[in-house]
């Protein structure tokens, strides 16, 4: 079974600065999908960014980008120009498309953006 590890339970960053959240995973699959989800205090899970394992190019969505290292099974999220609204729990997730799109999550990182 796939496992996802987020080694940073909590992090903080000053507004306008850059922060990187780490994630590692374990799988024997060669094709899969990786995600970062954000959960603000409203509890609504919001998709931040998605990476397809067969694509070497790192995904980018505005201020959010990933560093995908397939051989190292690492998938970190970089948030540039941090904003107060980025304060949330961030979950890294792995999806195996050969297994009914079963998605597995890490334990989460609580990010606080300080003014």
């Amino acid at each position, binding site marked *: 079974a796939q496992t996802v590890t987020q080694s940073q339970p909590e992090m903080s960053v000053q507004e306008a600065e850059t922060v990187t959240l780490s994630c590692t995973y374990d799988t024997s699959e060669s094709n899969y999908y990786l995600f970062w989800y954000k959960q603000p205090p409203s509890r609504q899970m919001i998709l931040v960014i998605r990476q397809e394992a067969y694509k070497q190019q790192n995904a980018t969505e505005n201020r959010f980008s990933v560093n995908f290292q397939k051989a190292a099974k690492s998938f970190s999220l970089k948030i540039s120009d941090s904003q107060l609204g980025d304060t949330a729990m961030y*979950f890294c997730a792995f999806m195996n498309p050969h297994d*009914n799109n*079963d998605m597995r999550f890490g334990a989460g990182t609580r990010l606080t953006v300080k003014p």
Partner: protein
Amino acid sequence: DVKVTQSSRYLVKRTGEKVFLECVQDMDHENMFWYRQDPGLGLRLIYFSYDVKMKEKGDIPEGYSVSREKKERFSLILESASTNQTSMYLCASSFAGRGTNEKLFFGSGTQLSVL
């Protein structure tokens, strides 16, 4: 926009009660999931369903059952609630198959307290 609706935001039940958590999605998704979210553990899969009347156990199915009589509705049932089932419950849905922009759409969660 895809909408996944969970019937209750907060729920308080007594030990031994039978509890129903309801989830409805409006995008004709084949797959539906129930997760449990606990601090430090992330989201753990309880059950999922890839079609009407079909169900598969996730990682922590003990003490839970599910029902999917209609495509849009997926119910989680606690036959006899116990205090260790106090948690946040998240429902999610997705399209089936590959190459369909795989991702999960989440409800807003139900915070269940069992006293």
